[in-house]
């Protein structure tokens, strides 16, 4: 099971700031695929993923227990 965190417009689209996903050993790319098809999240190409507070690449593996944040383009400052 992985813990997903959502921010900004993604949080509003999905209607929640976090959800739990019953899966293990998937790549970042696979996760994005799931979110696109099962949760109808758009514009996932522009979304970054952080695994346990570290930015991850498309091929990085997400394991059960990880906290995964979906990070749309940032606009701080």
């Amino acid at each position: 099971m992985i813990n997903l965190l959502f921010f900004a417009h993604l949080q509003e689209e999905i209607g929640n700031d976090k959800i739990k996903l019953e899966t293990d050993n998937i790549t970042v790319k696979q996760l994005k695929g799931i979110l696109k098809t099962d949760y109808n999240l758009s514009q996932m190409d522009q979304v970054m993923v952080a695994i346990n507070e570290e930015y991850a690449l498309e091929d990085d593996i997400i394991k059960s227990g990880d906290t995964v944040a979906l990070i749309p383009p940032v606009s701080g400052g």
Partner: protein
Amino acid sequence: MSEKLFNVQEKPIQLEEIVKKVESSNAGAITTFIGTVREWTKGKRTVYLEYQAYVPMAEKMLAQIGSEIQAKWENTKVAITHRIGHLDISDVAVIIAVSSPHRKAAYEANEYAIERIKQIVPIWKKEQWEDGEAWIGDQLERVAYQEGKPKIKDEDR
């Protein structure tokens, strides 16, 4: 006051407090950047802003920016505080303070910090206009992250 050099907080930011964190008897120069909420952007009036952050990671990324600066500019000290939540016009959203023995480094490092904040720190703002609202995306005007993520290191890894 918070003693943390890299901080994300809901309460208003005190300029003097941030500057104190970087003071040093060997710093001849301290630069600060104060980012405030602007009323007009390209002819559109902002009523207020809402900032959201992934707080623990945002503070980690701010600290990383501090480390990058100390590696690039010798003997600098850096403190950054970003505010989140509801901000009105003219409210302070972010303060960056950099001290250095020499002024050139203090300017360069400070500007580097704000550019990096806009690249890697997970903080978002939602603009409230008179006729609507929207989460603001990438202000650096890139269409998409080239590798699916921002440049985390200066050299691509």
